[in-house]
């Protein structure tokens, strides 16, 4: 009888350690689920709050002038000379100069409507424009601007200065333009023009 009892106890002992990890796992899963719920609900609440904060000041001017437009001058190449030629475009205005700058660059990439030559590869994409207080515009392109074209000196100069002049010509707050690719500083687009310094505009290469 004693032996049997001992065997039973032993079996109980065996059972207990078997259950423990299952319990622990269950507890872990539950706490994980709780954490996940907290994480997502907490995150959403914050998002909502942020959106609410931003949308309050945004809503007022947007309601007052729902279709505000402004004219910008974009710089393209011509087949007849080596100069940049201006072409005007209507873009949506505001709210910030950086927003307008992004729209102007998107139009520049789309290309000319008047038979001029596009200085940027059609696949190029602007990720963001950021304008500092001291007037440097950081134009951040996606990798396409480097990968979708093999630049010579002329095409690289044209690509850089079409962006630089388009920015500085249309936006008073922009004095110099720095070109980034995928958020980082690159030496050059294709082995020629130094991108490590911001460019002042060069209107000597613009047709009169």
């Amino acid at each position, binding site marked *: 009888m004693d032996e049997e009892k001992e065997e039973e106890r032993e079996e109980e002992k065996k059972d207990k350690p078997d259950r423990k990890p299952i319990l622990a796992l269950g507890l872990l899963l539950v706490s994980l689920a709780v954490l996940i719920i907290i994480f997502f609900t907490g995150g959403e609440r914050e998002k909502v709050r942020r959106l609410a904060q931003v949308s309050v000041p945004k809503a007022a001017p947007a309601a007052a002038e729902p279709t505000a437009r402004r004219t910008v001058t974009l710089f393209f190449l011509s087949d007849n000379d080596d100069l940049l030629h201006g072409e005007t475009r209507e873009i949506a205005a505001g709210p910030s100069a950086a927003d307008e700058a992004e729209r102007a660059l998107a139009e520049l990439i789309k290309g000319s409507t008047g038979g001029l030559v596009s200085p940027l590869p059609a696949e190029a994409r602007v990720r963001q424009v950021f304008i500092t207080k001291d007037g440097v515009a950081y134009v951040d392109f996606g990798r396409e601007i480097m990968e979708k074209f093999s630049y*010579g*000196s002329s*095409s690289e100069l044209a690509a850089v200065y079409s962006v630089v002049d388009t920015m500085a010509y249309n936006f008073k707050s922009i004095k110099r333009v720095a070109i980034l690719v995928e958020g980082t500083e690159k030496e050059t687009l294709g*082995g*020629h023009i*130094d991108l490590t*310094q911001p460019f002042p505009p060069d209107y000597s290469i613009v047709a009169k």
Partner: protein
Amino acid sequence: MDKKHRPSLSCFLLTSLLVAAFAAAPASSEPGVRARAEAKKLRTVVIDPGHGGMELGAKGKYGHLEKDITLAIALKLKALIEKNLAFGVVLTRDKDVDVPVENRAAVANNVKADLFISIHTNGSRQKAAEGSETFFLSSGQTPDEETRRLAYLENNGSRIEDHVDKPSESDVKMILWDMAQTAYIRQSSQLADLIQAELNSLLGTRNRGIKQAPFKVLTGVACPAVLIEAAFISNPNEERKLATDEFQTSVAEAIFRGLSKYLQIYP
């Protein structure tokens, strides 16, 4: 391949230059090395064939690549200089390999180059673009910064190398290398002018003149430096020319003649 006439001499020149380059970098403040370098008075041209390796440069309609043509011209120019001038020649690359842009200037500064010549063929998105041009550096900075740089240089002596050499002042070294080319702008423009004149008469390509642009490869070079754009590989007519041995030889010859004329002014 003309240099096969005197391979032993050019080999000796190259090896001694390379040895000098490696010795000069870490221990140039050592008086012995300096004295030896002075005594040798070996003058050096650094030729930089544009692009290379993964970096193709401009592409032609018929598939010719800028990196291949620049290397072919550079090898021809090297042979011409070694045959006719008392100069050593160092190439920033002698085969199809990647060389980071800043390393090209470093090669020139490490061998204490007397002249730096970067060879390119042009590319444009305008199909009809044609002709040859020679660039020298514009820093692309505001006039204010330019003035400050020049003032700094004047206050700190004209021979930049004297400052660059001191290994203890690594910060100063970086700054000075960064603005190294600024001190040589006038000589660089003269060299550009003389080479451009020869390109016009020998190649018969459209004269696009001499120009300034902020070329990365030129910024750190501490000696007169130019960048030649011989014809447009993006223009099918000029691409066909660029691919011929005859045209490549003419480009090398034109650069060589411009260089020789420059050396008559600055012997």
